Protein backbone atom coordinates (compact mmCIF):
# COMPACT_ATOMS: atom_id res chain seq x y z
CA UNK A 1 0.00 0.00 0.00
CA UNK A 2 2.81 2.37 0.92
CA UNK A 3 4.50 1.60 -2.38
CA UNK A 4 1.31 2.36 -4.26
CA UNK A 5 0.96 5.64 -2.40
CA UNK A 6 4.55 6.58 -3.06
CA UNK A 7 4.20 5.68 -6.74
CA UNK A 8 1.02 7.67 -7.04
CA UNK A 9 2.63 10.59 -5.24
CA UNK A 10 5.63 10.51 -7.56
CA UNK A 11 3.68 10.32 -10.76
CA UNK A 12 0.98 12.60 -9.47
CA UNK A 13 3.61 15.22 -8.82
CA UNK A 14 5.06 14.49 -12.22
CA UNK A 15 1.74 15.01 -13.89
CA UNK A 16 1.24 18.34 -12.15
CA UNK A 17 4.68 19.45 -13.16
CA UNK A 18 3.96 18.46 -16.72
CA UNK A 19 0.80 20.46 -16.99
CA UNK A 20 2.23 23.41 -15.11
CA UNK A 21 5.44 23.66 -17.11
CA UNK A 22 4.53 22.33 -20.48
CA UNK A 23 6.20 25.28 -22.20
CA UNK A 24 9.58 24.58 -20.73
CA UNK A 25 11.92 22.64 -22.97
CA UNK A 26 13.86 20.81 -20.32
CA UNK A 27 12.04 21.04 -17.03
CA UNK A 28 8.99 19.15 -18.10
CA UNK A 29 7.77 15.64 -17.70
CA UNK A 30 6.89 14.53 -21.20
CA UNK A 31 4.24 11.98 -21.89
CA UNK A 32 6.73 9.35 -23.07
CA UNK A 33 8.76 9.79 -19.89
CA UNK A 34 5.70 9.28 -17.72
CA UNK A 35 4.67 6.21 -19.73
CA UNK A 36 8.10 4.61 -19.30
CA UNK A 37 8.21 5.51 -15.62
CA UNK A 38 4.78 4.02 -14.99
CA UNK A 39 5.74 0.89 -16.95
CA UNK A 40 8.89 0.42 -14.88
CA UNK A 41 7.08 1.18 -11.63
CA UNK A 42 4.39 -1.40 -12.42
CA UNK A 43 7.02 -3.95 -13.44
CA UNK A 44 9.03 -3.48 -10.24
CA UNK A 45 5.82 -3.58 -8.25
CA UNK A 46 4.87 -6.92 -9.78
CA UNK A 47 8.36 -8.32 -9.19
CA UNK A 48 8.21 -7.07 -5.61
CA UNK A 49 4.90 -8.79 -4.90
CA UNK A 50 6.07 -11.98 -6.60
CA UNK A 51 9.28 -12.01 -4.57
CA UNK A 52 7.53 -10.97 -1.36
CA UNK A 53 5.41 -14.14 -1.46
CA UNK A 54 8.59 -16.23 -1.44
CA UNK A 55 10.49 -14.09 1.08
CA UNK A 56 9.24 -15.91 4.15
CA UNK A 57 12.66 -16.81 5.53
CA UNK A 58 15.74 -14.70 6.14
CA UNK A 59 17.84 -16.68 3.66
CA UNK A 60 15.22 -16.12 0.96
CA UNK A 61 14.86 -12.43 1.85
CA UNK A 62 18.60 -11.71 2.17
CA UNK A 63 20.21 -14.08 -0.37
CA UNK A 64 17.35 -15.30 -2.59
CA UNK A 65 17.89 -18.78 -1.15
CA UNK A 66 21.25 -19.02 -3.00
CA UNK A 67 19.31 -20.08 -6.08
CA UNK A 68 20.51 -17.47 -8.58
CA UNK A 69 22.48 -18.86 -11.55
CA UNK A 70 25.95 -17.65 -12.58
CA UNK A 71 24.63 -15.85 -15.65
CA UNK A 72 21.86 -14.16 -13.70
CA UNK A 73 24.26 -13.16 -10.94
CA UNK A 74 26.74 -11.82 -13.50
CA UNK A 75 24.04 -9.60 -14.94
CA UNK A 76 22.95 -8.54 -11.46
CA UNK A 77 26.52 -7.68 -10.42
CA UNK A 78 26.93 -5.73 -13.65
CA UNK A 79 23.64 -4.05 -12.86
CA UNK A 80 24.99 -3.06 -9.44
CA UNK A 81 27.93 -1.40 -11.17
CA UNK A 82 25.82 0.21 -13.88
CA UNK A 83 24.34 2.31 -11.12
CA UNK A 84 22.97 5.80 -11.42
CA UNK A 85 26.23 6.92 -9.85
CA UNK A 86 28.24 5.31 -12.64
CA UNK A 87 25.88 6.09 -15.52
CA UNK A 88 25.13 9.69 -14.58
CA UNK A 89 28.30 10.45 -12.61
CA UNK A 90 30.91 9.11 -15.02
CA UNK A 91 29.16 10.62 -18.05
CA UNK A 92 28.97 13.90 -16.13
CA UNK A 93 32.64 13.67 -15.21
CA UNK A 94 33.63 13.11 -18.87
CA UNK A 95 31.38 15.99 -19.91
CA UNK A 96 33.01 18.28 -17.36
CA UNK A 97 36.65 17.37 -17.85
CA UNK A 98 37.13 14.68 -20.48
CA UNK A 99 39.28 11.64 -19.81
CA UNK A 100 39.23 12.09 -16.02
CA UNK A 101 35.86 10.33 -15.98
CA UNK A 102 37.24 7.37 -17.92
CA UNK A 103 40.11 7.05 -15.46
CA UNK A 104 37.55 6.33 -12.74
CA UNK A 105 35.82 3.82 -15.05
CA UNK A 106 39.08 1.98 -15.77
CA UNK A 107 39.84 1.87 -12.05
CA UNK A 108 36.47 0.33 -11.26
CA UNK A 109 36.94 -2.31 -13.96
CA UNK A 110 40.46 -3.13 -12.77
CA UNK A 111 39.07 -3.88 -9.32
CA UNK A 112 37.09 -6.90 -10.58
CA UNK A 113 40.04 -9.23 -11.17
CA UNK A 114 41.11 -8.47 -7.59
CA UNK A 115 37.66 -9.48 -6.37
CA UNK A 116 37.79 -12.68 -8.42
CA UNK A 117 41.31 -13.75 -7.49
CA UNK A 118 41.12 -12.96 -3.79
CA UNK A 119 37.65 -13.06 -2.30
CA UNK A 120 34.83 -14.35 -4.55
CA UNK A 121 35.32 -18.09 -4.07
CA UNK A 122 36.30 -18.13 -0.37
CA UNK A 123 33.40 -15.85 0.35
CA UNK A 124 30.93 -18.23 -1.29
CA UNK A 125 32.54 -21.20 0.44
CA UNK A 126 32.52 -19.76 3.96
CA UNK A 127 29.83 -17.09 4.05
CA UNK A 128 26.08 -17.10 4.31
CA UNK A 129 24.69 -13.63 4.95
CA UNK A 130 27.58 -11.18 5.28
CA UNK A 131 31.36 -11.04 4.95
CA UNK A 132 31.58 -11.26 8.75
CA UNK A 133 30.65 -14.94 8.38
CA UNK A 134 34.06 -15.46 6.79
CA UNK A 135 35.88 -13.60 9.56
CA UNK A 136 34.11 -15.49 12.33
CA UNK A 137 35.38 -18.81 11.02
CA UNK A 138 38.67 -18.16 12.71
CA UNK A 139 37.98 -15.25 15.03
CA UNK A 140 35.84 -14.69 18.08
CA UNK A 141 32.39 -13.94 16.85
CA UNK A 142 30.97 -11.18 19.00
CA UNK A 143 33.47 -8.37 18.63
CA UNK A 144 34.07 -9.15 14.95
CA UNK A 145 30.38 -8.99 14.15
CA UNK A 146 29.98 -5.62 15.89
CA UNK A 147 32.92 -4.25 13.92
CA UNK A 148 31.74 -5.71 10.60
CA UNK A 149 28.22 -4.40 11.21
CA UNK A 150 29.45 -0.90 11.96
CA UNK A 151 31.73 -0.73 8.92
CA UNK A 152 29.02 -2.13 6.63
CA UNK A 153 26.52 0.46 7.78
CA UNK A 154 29.02 3.30 7.29
CA UNK A 155 29.94 2.13 3.78
CA UNK A 156 26.33 1.54 2.79
CA UNK A 157 25.45 5.04 4.03
CA UNK A 158 28.17 6.64 1.90
CA UNK A 159 27.14 4.62 -1.13
CA UNK A 160 23.51 5.52 -0.55
CA UNK A 161 24.35 9.21 -0.71
CA UNK A 162 25.72 8.88 -4.24
CA UNK A 163 22.60 7.07 -5.42
CA UNK A 164 20.24 9.49 -3.69
CA UNK A 165 21.96 12.54 -5.16
CA UNK A 166 21.65 11.01 -8.65
CA UNK A 167 18.04 10.09 -8.00
CA UNK A 168 17.13 13.52 -6.67
CA UNK A 169 18.65 15.32 -9.65
CA UNK A 170 17.03 12.97 -12.13
CA UNK A 171 13.50 13.13 -10.73
CA UNK A 172 13.82 16.84 -10.08
CA UNK A 173 14.68 17.48 -13.71
CA UNK A 174 12.16 15.12 -15.24
CA UNK A 175 9.17 16.16 -13.19
CA UNK A 176 10.04 19.78 -12.59
CA UNK A 177 9.85 19.45 -8.82
CA UNK A 178 12.38 20.51 -6.19
CA UNK A 179 15.42 18.41 -5.35
CA UNK A 180 14.23 17.82 -1.77
CA UNK A 181 10.76 16.46 -2.61
CA UNK A 182 12.33 14.35 -5.36
CA UNK A 183 14.78 12.71 -2.93
CA UNK A 184 12.00 12.05 -0.41
CA UNK A 185 9.68 10.50 -2.98
CA UNK A 186 12.36 8.28 -4.48
CA UNK A 187 13.46 7.30 -0.99
CA UNK A 188 9.94 6.22 -0.05
CA UNK A 189 9.65 4.07 -3.15
CA UNK A 190 13.00 2.46 -2.47
CA UNK A 191 12.22 1.71 1.16
CA UNK A 192 9.00 -0.05 0.28
CA UNK A 193 10.52 -1.95 -2.65
CA UNK A 194 13.45 -3.29 -0.66
CA UNK A 195 11.45 -4.03 2.48
CA UNK A 196 8.89 -5.98 0.51
CA UNK A 197 10.77 -7.95 -2.11
CA UNK A 198 14.21 -8.60 -0.65
CA UNK A 199 17.17 -9.93 -2.59
CA UNK A 200 15.20 -11.89 -5.17
CA UNK A 201 13.26 -8.82 -6.26
CA UNK A 202 16.42 -6.69 -6.25
CA UNK A 203 18.25 -9.31 -8.33
CA UNK A 204 15.56 -9.61 -10.99
CA UNK A 205 15.14 -5.86 -11.26
CA UNK A 206 18.92 -5.63 -11.60
CA UNK A 207 18.92 -8.23 -14.38
CA UNK A 208 16.15 -6.55 -16.34
CA UNK A 209 17.67 -3.15 -15.75
CA UNK A 210 21.16 -4.28 -16.79
CA UNK A 211 19.80 -5.53 -20.10
CA UNK A 212 17.84 -2.33 -20.66
CA UNK A 213 20.76 -0.16 -19.57
CA UNK A 214 23.16 -1.85 -21.99
CA UNK A 215 20.55 -1.65 -24.73
CA UNK A 216 19.79 2.02 -24.04
CA UNK A 217 23.46 2.97 -23.83
CA UNK A 218 24.16 1.12 -27.08
CA UNK A 219 21.32 3.03 -28.70
CA UNK A 220 22.66 6.41 -27.57
CA UNK A 221 26.23 5.53 -28.53
CA UNK A 222 25.15 4.33 -31.97
CA UNK A 223 23.05 7.43 -32.61
CA UNK A 224 25.92 9.67 -31.46
CA UNK A 225 28.37 7.92 -33.78
CA UNK A 226 25.80 8.10 -36.61
CA UNK A 227 25.76 11.87 -36.20
CA UNK A 228 29.45 11.83 -37.07
CA UNK A 229 29.18 9.29 -39.87
CA UNK A 230 30.62 6.63 -37.53
CA UNK A 231 33.88 8.54 -37.69
CA UNK A 232 35.33 8.65 -34.16
CA UNK A 233 37.92 11.23 -35.27
CA UNK A 234 35.15 13.66 -36.15
CA UNK A 235 33.54 13.07 -32.77
CA UNK A 236 36.79 13.84 -30.93
CA UNK A 237 37.52 16.85 -33.12
CA UNK A 238 34.09 18.36 -32.46
CA UNK A 239 34.33 17.60 -28.73
CA UNK A 240 37.78 19.21 -28.49
CA UNK A 241 36.60 22.29 -30.34
CA UNK A 242 33.54 22.63 -28.08
CA UNK A 243 35.37 22.21 -24.77
CA UNK A 244 37.13 25.24 -23.26
CA UNK A 245 40.27 23.19 -22.64
CA UNK A 246 40.45 21.98 -26.24
CA UNK A 247 42.68 18.97 -26.91
CA UNK A 248 43.31 18.52 -23.19
CA UNK A 249 40.06 16.57 -22.89
CA UNK A 250 41.98 13.74 -24.57
CA UNK A 251 44.18 13.48 -21.50
CA UNK A 252 43.55 13.31 -17.78
CA UNK A 253 43.83 16.75 -16.21
CA UNK A 254 42.39 16.94 -12.72
CA UNK A 255 43.92 13.62 -11.72
CA UNK A 256 47.32 14.68 -13.07
CA UNK A 257 47.56 17.65 -10.71
CA UNK A 258 48.41 15.62 -7.67
CA UNK A 259 49.94 12.17 -8.17
CA UNK A 260 49.54 11.20 -4.51
CA UNK A 261 45.84 12.07 -4.51
CA UNK A 262 45.30 10.11 -7.72
CA UNK A 263 47.22 7.11 -6.44
CA UNK A 264 45.23 7.18 -3.22
CA UNK A 265 41.94 7.34 -5.12
CA UNK A 266 43.07 4.51 -7.40
CA UNK A 267 44.13 2.26 -4.51
CA UNK A 268 40.80 2.92 -2.83
CA UNK A 269 38.85 1.86 -5.90
CA UNK A 270 41.13 -1.07 -6.77
CA UNK A 271 40.76 -2.73 -3.38
CA UNK A 272 37.50 -1.14 -2.30
CA UNK A 273 35.25 -3.20 -4.56
CA UNK A 274 36.41 -6.30 -2.67
CA UNK A 275 35.08 -4.67 0.51
CA UNK A 276 31.75 -3.30 -0.69
CA UNK A 277 29.01 -5.08 1.27
CA UNK A 278 26.37 -5.06 -1.47
CA UNK A 279 28.83 -6.54 -3.97
CA UNK A 280 30.03 -9.20 -1.52
CA UNK A 281 26.38 -10.09 -0.79
CA UNK A 282 25.95 -11.10 -4.43
CA UNK A 283 28.25 -14.09 -3.93
CA UNK A 284 25.85 -15.53 -1.35
CA UNK A 285 23.03 -15.63 -3.90
CA UNK A 286 24.66 -18.34 -6.05
CA UNK A 287 24.87 -22.02 -5.24
CA UNK A 288 28.64 -22.68 -5.26
CA UNK A 289 32.14 -21.32 -5.83
CA UNK A 290 32.16 -22.09 -9.53
CA UNK A 291 29.01 -20.04 -10.05
CA UNK A 292 30.59 -17.20 -8.05
CA UNK A 293 33.70 -17.32 -10.23
CA UNK A 294 31.87 -17.46 -13.54
CA UNK A 295 29.47 -14.70 -12.51
CA UNK A 296 32.43 -12.35 -11.94
CA UNK A 297 33.65 -13.06 -15.46
CA UNK A 298 30.25 -12.28 -16.98
CA UNK A 299 30.03 -9.15 -14.87
CA UNK A 300 33.50 -7.95 -15.88
CA UNK A 301 32.71 -8.35 -19.59
CA UNK A 302 29.40 -6.51 -19.27
CA UNK A 303 30.86 -3.72 -17.16
CA UNK A 304 33.71 -3.29 -19.67
CA UNK A 305 31.21 -3.04 -22.50
CA UNK A 306 29.14 -0.54 -20.56
CA UNK A 307 32.13 1.67 -19.77
CA UNK A 308 33.20 1.60 -23.43
CA UNK A 309 29.78 2.94 -24.34
CA UNK A 310 29.99 5.57 -21.60
CA UNK A 311 33.17 6.76 -23.30
CA UNK A 312 31.23 7.51 -26.50
CA UNK A 313 28.32 8.98 -24.52
CA UNK A 314 30.64 11.25 -22.52
CA UNK A 315 32.51 12.63 -25.53
CA UNK A 316 29.27 12.73 -27.50
CA UNK A 317 27.73 14.93 -24.84
CA UNK A 318 30.67 17.34 -25.09
CA UNK A 319 30.36 17.40 -28.88
CA UNK A 320 26.59 17.77 -29.06
CA UNK A 321 25.46 19.49 -25.85
CA UNK A 322 28.12 22.10 -25.11
CA UNK A 323 27.20 25.36 -26.73
CA UNK A 324 23.60 24.29 -27.28
CA UNK A 325 21.40 26.69 -25.31
CA UNK A 326 18.69 24.04 -25.09
CA UNK A 327 20.81 21.93 -22.77
CA UNK A 328 23.60 24.06 -21.32
CA UNK A 329 24.11 27.59 -20.08
CA UNK A 330 26.74 29.99 -21.40
CA UNK A 331 29.45 28.59 -19.15
CA UNK A 332 28.79 25.07 -20.43
CA UNK A 333 27.08 23.73 -17.30
CA UNK A 334 24.15 21.49 -18.16
CA UNK A 335 20.67 22.39 -16.94
CA UNK A 336 19.91 20.23 -13.93
CA UNK A 337 23.61 19.49 -13.36
CA UNK A 338 26.36 17.82 -15.36
CA UNK A 339 25.29 14.44 -13.97
CA UNK A 340 22.36 14.60 -16.39
CA UNK A 341 24.58 14.53 -19.48
CA UNK A 342 23.32 11.12 -20.75
CA UNK A 343 19.66 12.12 -20.35
CA UNK A 344 20.18 15.35 -22.29
CA UNK A 345 22.21 13.51 -24.90
CA UNK A 346 19.48 10.90 -25.33
CA UNK A 347 17.04 13.73 -25.97
CA UNK A 348 19.42 15.40 -28.41
CA UNK A 349 20.03 12.30 -30.54
CA UNK A 350 16.87 10.27 -30.04
CA UNK A 351 14.17 12.75 -29.07
CA UNK A 352 11.84 12.63 -26.11
CA UNK A 353 11.05 8.91 -26.46
CA UNK A 354 14.68 7.83 -26.03
CA UNK A 355 15.14 10.42 -23.26
CA UNK A 356 12.05 9.05 -21.50
CA UNK A 357 13.30 5.49 -21.87
CA UNK A 358 16.79 6.33 -20.57
CA UNK A 359 15.34 8.33 -17.68
CA UNK A 360 13.12 5.44 -16.70
CA UNK A 361 16.03 3.01 -16.95
CA UNK A 362 18.13 5.33 -14.78
CA UNK A 363 15.27 5.46 -12.30
CA UNK A 364 14.99 1.65 -12.28
CA UNK A 365 18.76 1.58 -11.76
CA UNK A 366 18.46 3.69 -8.66
CA UNK A 367 15.67 1.51 -7.31
CA UNK A 368 17.61 -1.68 -7.90
CA UNK A 369 20.99 -0.51 -6.65
CA UNK A 370 19.62 1.11 -3.52
CA UNK A 371 17.54 -1.98 -2.82
CA UNK A 372 20.72 -4.05 -2.96
CA UNK A 373 22.42 -1.57 -0.64
CA UNK A 374 19.56 -1.58 1.83
CA UNK A 375 19.45 -5.37 1.85
CA UNK A 376 23.23 -5.59 2.40
CA UNK A 377 22.92 -3.10 5.26
CA UNK A 378 19.89 -4.90 6.65
CA UNK A 379 21.65 -8.24 6.51
CA UNK A 380 24.63 -6.87 8.35
CA UNK A 381 22.45 -5.14 10.93
CA UNK A 382 20.51 -8.34 11.69
CA UNK A 383 23.31 -10.88 11.43
CA UNK A 384 26.28 -8.86 12.62
CA UNK A 385 25.32 -5.85 14.69
CA UNK A 386 22.35 -7.28 16.59
CA UNK A 387 23.99 -10.69 17.07
CA UNK A 388 27.23 -9.05 18.16
CA UNK A 389 25.62 -6.61 20.57
CA UNK A 390 23.12 -9.05 22.06
CA UNK A 391 25.54 -11.96 22.15
CA UNK A 392 22.93 -14.51 21.02
CA UNK A 393 21.83 -16.01 17.73
CA UNK A 394 18.53 -14.84 16.29
CA UNK A 395 15.76 -17.18 15.30
CA UNK A 396 14.50 -17.09 11.72
CA UNK A 397 11.47 -14.91 12.41
CA UNK A 398 13.38 -12.35 14.46
CA UNK A 399 16.20 -12.14 11.87
CA UNK A 400 13.70 -11.47 9.09
CA UNK A 401 11.91 -8.84 11.15
CA UNK A 402 15.11 -7.04 12.14
CA UNK A 403 16.34 -7.15 8.54
CA UNK A 404 13.19 -5.43 7.30
CA UNK A 405 13.27 -2.79 10.06
CA UNK A 406 16.93 -2.11 9.33
CA UNK A 407 16.16 -1.72 5.60
CA UNK A 408 13.56 0.91 6.44
CA UNK A 409 15.85 2.76 8.84
CA UNK A 410 18.68 2.82 6.31
CA UNK A 411 16.30 4.14 3.68
CA UNK A 412 15.37 7.07 5.92
CA UNK A 413 19.07 7.71 6.58
CA UNK A 414 19.71 7.67 2.83
CA UNK A 415 17.03 10.31 2.31
CA UNK A 416 18.55 12.59 4.96
CA UNK A 417 22.08 12.20 3.63
CA UNK A 418 20.88 12.69 0.06
CA UNK A 419 19.30 15.99 1.06
CA UNK A 420 22.55 17.13 2.71
CA UNK A 421 24.77 16.34 -0.29
CA UNK A 422 22.87 18.07 -3.07
CA UNK A 423 25.06 19.05 -6.03
CA UNK A 424 28.00 16.71 -5.32
CA UNK A 425 29.45 14.69 -8.20
CA UNK A 426 28.04 11.23 -7.62
CA UNK A 427 30.95 9.36 -9.21
CA UNK A 428 33.28 10.98 -6.72
CA UNK A 429 31.04 10.06 -3.81
CA UNK A 430 31.17 6.44 -4.97
CA UNK A 431 34.95 6.63 -4.96
CA UNK A 432 34.90 7.83 -1.35
CA UNK A 433 32.66 4.92 -0.33
CA UNK A 434 35.03 2.45 -1.94
CA UNK A 435 37.98 4.08 -0.15
CA UNK A 436 36.33 3.36 3.20
CA UNK A 437 35.53 -0.21 2.08
CA UNK A 438 39.15 -0.69 1.03
CA UNK A 439 40.42 0.51 4.40
CA UNK A 440 37.92 -1.10 6.76
CA UNK A 441 36.76 -4.36 5.15
CA UNK A 442 39.26 -5.50 2.54
CA UNK A 443 42.32 -5.90 4.83
CA UNK A 444 40.32 -7.96 7.32
CA UNK A 445 38.84 -10.16 4.63
CA UNK A 446 42.22 -10.68 2.97
CA UNK A 447 44.02 -11.60 6.17
CA UNK A 448 41.18 -13.76 7.47
CA UNK A 449 41.21 -15.82 4.28
CA UNK A 450 44.94 -16.04 3.62
CA UNK A 451 46.81 -15.59 6.90
CA UNK A 452 46.51 -18.10 9.69
CA UNK A 453 48.23 -15.78 12.14
CA UNK A 454 45.38 -13.26 12.32
CA UNK A 455 43.91 -13.08 15.81
CA UNK A 456 40.64 -11.60 16.98
CA UNK A 457 42.53 -8.91 18.82
CA UNK A 458 44.50 -8.03 15.69
CA UNK A 459 41.41 -7.99 13.49
CA UNK A 460 39.42 -5.80 15.88
CA UNK A 461 42.30 -3.36 16.36
CA UNK A 462 43.07 -3.18 12.63
CA UNK A 463 39.45 -3.03 11.52
CA UNK A 464 38.59 -0.33 14.05
CA UNK A 465 41.63 1.64 13.00
CA UNK A 466 40.77 1.24 9.29
CA UNK A 467 37.17 2.27 9.76
CA UNK A 468 37.77 5.26 12.04
CA UNK A 469 40.84 6.56 10.21
CA UNK A 470 39.23 6.31 6.76
CA UNK A 471 35.99 7.97 7.87
CA UNK A 472 37.76 10.74 9.81
CA UNK A 473 40.28 11.45 7.04
CA UNK A 474 37.54 11.36 4.39
CA UNK A 475 35.48 13.79 6.49
CA UNK A 476 38.51 16.08 6.84
CA UNK A 477 39.22 15.95 3.10
CA UNK A 478 38.32 18.64 0.57
CA UNK A 479 34.96 17.21 -0.56
CA UNK A 480 33.30 16.74 2.83
CA UNK A 481 35.13 19.35 4.94
CA UNK A 482 35.13 22.21 2.43
CA UNK A 483 32.34 21.55 -0.06
CA UNK A 484 29.66 19.75 1.97
CA UNK A 485 30.28 21.18 5.45
CA UNK A 486 31.73 24.52 4.29
CA UNK A 487 34.28 24.61 7.12
CA UNK A 488 37.06 26.26 5.14
CA UNK A 489 40.31 24.72 3.88
CA UNK A 490 40.50 20.95 4.28
CA UNK A 491 42.61 19.58 7.14
CA UNK A 492 43.56 16.41 5.21
CA UNK A 493 44.68 17.30 1.67
CA UNK A 494 43.33 14.22 -0.14
CA UNK A 495 39.76 13.14 -0.76
CA UNK A 496 40.59 9.46 -0.62
CA UNK A 497 42.76 8.30 2.29
CA UNK A 498 43.17 4.71 1.03
CA UNK A 499 46.85 5.02 0.12
CA UNK A 500 47.61 5.57 3.81
CA UNK A 501 44.84 3.73 5.58
CA UNK A 502 44.96 0.39 3.69
CA UNK A 503 48.63 -0.42 4.42
CA UNK A 504 48.31 0.97 7.94
CA UNK A 505 45.28 -1.21 8.63
CA UNK A 506 47.17 -4.26 7.38
CA UNK A 507 50.11 -3.28 9.56
CA UNK A 508 47.97 -2.82 12.68
CA UNK A 509 46.30 -6.20 12.12
CA UNK A 510 49.69 -7.86 11.71
CA UNK A 511 51.42 -6.07 14.60
CA UNK A 512 48.65 -6.70 17.12
CA UNK A 513 48.24 -10.31 15.98
CA UNK A 514 51.89 -11.20 16.37
CA UNK A 515 52.24 -9.26 19.62
CA UNK A 516 50.18 -11.84 21.50
CA UNK A 517 49.14 -15.18 20.07
CA UNK A 518 45.57 -16.29 20.67
CA UNK A 519 45.21 -19.56 22.59
CA UNK A 520 43.70 -22.31 20.46
CA UNK A 521 41.41 -23.30 23.32
CA UNK A 522 40.14 -19.75 23.62
CA UNK A 523 39.38 -19.72 19.93
CA UNK A 524 37.50 -23.01 20.02
CA UNK A 525 35.37 -22.04 23.00
CA UNK A 526 34.44 -18.78 21.37
CA UNK A 527 33.30 -20.39 18.14
CA UNK A 528 29.82 -21.85 18.37
CA UNK A 529 29.06 -20.45 14.92
CA UNK A 530 31.82 -22.42 13.25
CA UNK A 531 30.38 -25.65 14.49
CA UNK A 532 26.96 -24.59 13.30
CA UNK A 533 28.35 -23.74 9.89
CA UNK A 534 30.15 -27.05 9.54
CA UNK A 535 27.11 -28.94 10.70
CA UNK A 536 24.86 -27.18 8.19
CA UNK A 537 27.43 -27.62 5.41
CA UNK A 538 27.67 -31.31 6.07
CA UNK A 539 23.92 -31.60 6.13
Amino acid sequence: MLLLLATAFTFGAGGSAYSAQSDSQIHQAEFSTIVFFVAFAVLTLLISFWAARRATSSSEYLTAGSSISAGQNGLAIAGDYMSAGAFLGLSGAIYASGLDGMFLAASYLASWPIVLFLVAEPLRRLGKYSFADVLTHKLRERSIRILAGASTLVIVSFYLVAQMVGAGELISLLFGIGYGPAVIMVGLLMIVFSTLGGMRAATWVQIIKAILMIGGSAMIATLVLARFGFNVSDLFRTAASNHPTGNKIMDIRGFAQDAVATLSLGIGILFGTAGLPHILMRFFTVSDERAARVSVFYATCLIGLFFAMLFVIGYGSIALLRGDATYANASGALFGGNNLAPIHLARAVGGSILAGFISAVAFATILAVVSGLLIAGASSAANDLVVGLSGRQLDERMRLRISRIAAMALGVLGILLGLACEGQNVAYLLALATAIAASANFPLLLLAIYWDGLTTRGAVAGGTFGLISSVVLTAMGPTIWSKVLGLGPAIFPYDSPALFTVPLTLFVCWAVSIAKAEPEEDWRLAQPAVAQYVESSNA
Partner: protein
Amino acid sequence: MQGASLHKTAEIVPLRSPANRLGALRFRLVLAMIVSYLAMMAFLIHSARHATQTIVLASDFSPAMIALASCMAFSVILTGLFVLVRHGD
Protein backbone atom coordinates in the same frame (compact mmCIF):
# COMPACT_ATOMS: atom_id res chain seq x y z
CA MET B 1 24.80 -35.69 22.18
CA GLN B 2 28.40 -36.26 23.13
CA GLY B 3 29.05 -37.84 19.75
CA ALA B 4 27.63 -34.84 17.90
CA SER B 5 29.87 -32.56 19.90
CA LEU B 6 33.00 -34.50 19.04
CA HIS B 7 32.00 -34.57 15.40
CA LYS B 8 31.79 -30.78 15.31
CA THR B 9 35.19 -30.32 16.92
CA ALA B 10 36.80 -32.76 14.52
CA GLU B 11 35.38 -30.83 11.57
CA ILE B 12 36.40 -27.40 12.80
CA VAL B 13 40.15 -27.92 12.82
CA PRO B 14 40.65 -28.62 9.11
CA LEU B 15 38.65 -25.51 8.28
CA ARG B 16 41.02 -23.32 10.17
CA SER B 17 44.40 -24.68 9.25
CA PRO B 18 44.40 -24.67 5.40
CA ALA B 19 43.04 -21.10 5.34
CA ASN B 20 42.77 -21.11 1.55
CA ARG B 21 46.39 -20.44 0.84
CA LEU B 22 47.06 -18.01 -1.91
CA GLY B 23 48.00 -20.16 -4.90
CA ALA B 24 50.87 -19.23 -7.16
CA LEU B 25 48.54 -18.51 -10.05
CA ARG B 26 46.33 -16.23 -8.00
CA PHE B 27 49.35 -14.40 -6.61
CA ARG B 28 50.81 -13.81 -10.06
CA LEU B 29 47.52 -12.66 -11.51
CA VAL B 30 46.86 -10.24 -8.64
CA LEU B 31 50.37 -8.88 -9.00
CA ALA B 32 49.96 -8.55 -12.78
CA MET B 33 46.74 -6.64 -12.34
CA ILE B 34 48.12 -4.27 -9.73
CA VAL B 35 51.30 -3.61 -11.71
CA SER B 36 49.42 -2.98 -14.96
CA TYR B 37 47.04 -0.62 -13.18
CA LEU B 38 49.84 1.33 -11.53
CA ALA B 39 51.72 1.46 -14.85
CA MET B 40 48.63 2.84 -16.55
CA MET B 41 48.24 5.44 -13.82
CA ALA B 42 51.89 6.47 -14.00
CA PHE B 43 51.68 6.79 -17.77
CA LEU B 44 48.52 8.90 -17.58
CA ILE B 45 50.03 11.28 -15.06
CA HIS B 46 53.27 11.50 -17.01
CA SER B 47 51.53 12.11 -20.32
CA ALA B 48 49.28 14.77 -18.80
CA ARG B 49 52.25 16.60 -17.31
CA HIS B 50 54.16 16.48 -20.58
CA ALA B 51 51.19 17.27 -22.76
CA THR B 52 53.13 18.88 -25.58
CA GLN B 53 55.19 15.79 -26.16
CA THR B 54 52.50 13.17 -25.90
CA ILE B 55 49.19 14.65 -26.99
CA VAL B 56 48.50 14.06 -30.61
CA LEU B 57 45.90 15.71 -32.74
CA ALA B 58 42.41 15.51 -31.28
CA SER B 59 41.29 13.58 -34.33
CA ASP B 60 43.00 10.41 -33.07
CA PHE B 61 42.94 8.37 -29.93
CA SER B 62 45.44 9.93 -27.54
CA PRO B 63 48.13 7.79 -25.86
CA ALA B 64 46.28 8.27 -22.59
CA MET B 65 43.10 6.84 -24.10
CA ILE B 66 45.01 3.86 -25.45
CA ALA B 67 46.59 3.27 -22.03
CA LEU B 68 43.18 3.35 -20.37
CA ALA B 69 41.65 1.04 -22.95
CA SER B 70 44.58 -1.39 -22.62
CA CYS B 71 44.19 -1.54 -18.85
CA MET B 72 40.45 -2.16 -19.19
CA ALA B 73 41.00 -4.89 -21.78
CA PHE B 74 43.69 -6.46 -19.59
CA SER B 75 41.23 -6.64 -16.69
CA VAL B 76 38.72 -8.55 -18.80
CA ILE B 77 41.39 -10.85 -20.30
CA LEU B 78 42.89 -11.73 -16.90
CA THR B 79 39.46 -12.51 -15.49
CA GLY B 80 38.63 -14.70 -18.48
CA LEU B 81 41.98 -16.45 -18.27
CA PHE B 82 41.47 -17.33 -14.62
CA VAL B 83 37.96 -18.64 -15.21
CA LEU B 84 39.24 -20.68 -18.17
CA VAL B 85 42.12 -22.17 -16.19
CA ARG B 86 39.80 -23.17 -13.35
CA HIS B 87 37.04 -24.34 -15.66
CA GLY B 88 37.32 -27.96 -14.58
CA ASP B 89 37.16 -27.22 -10.83
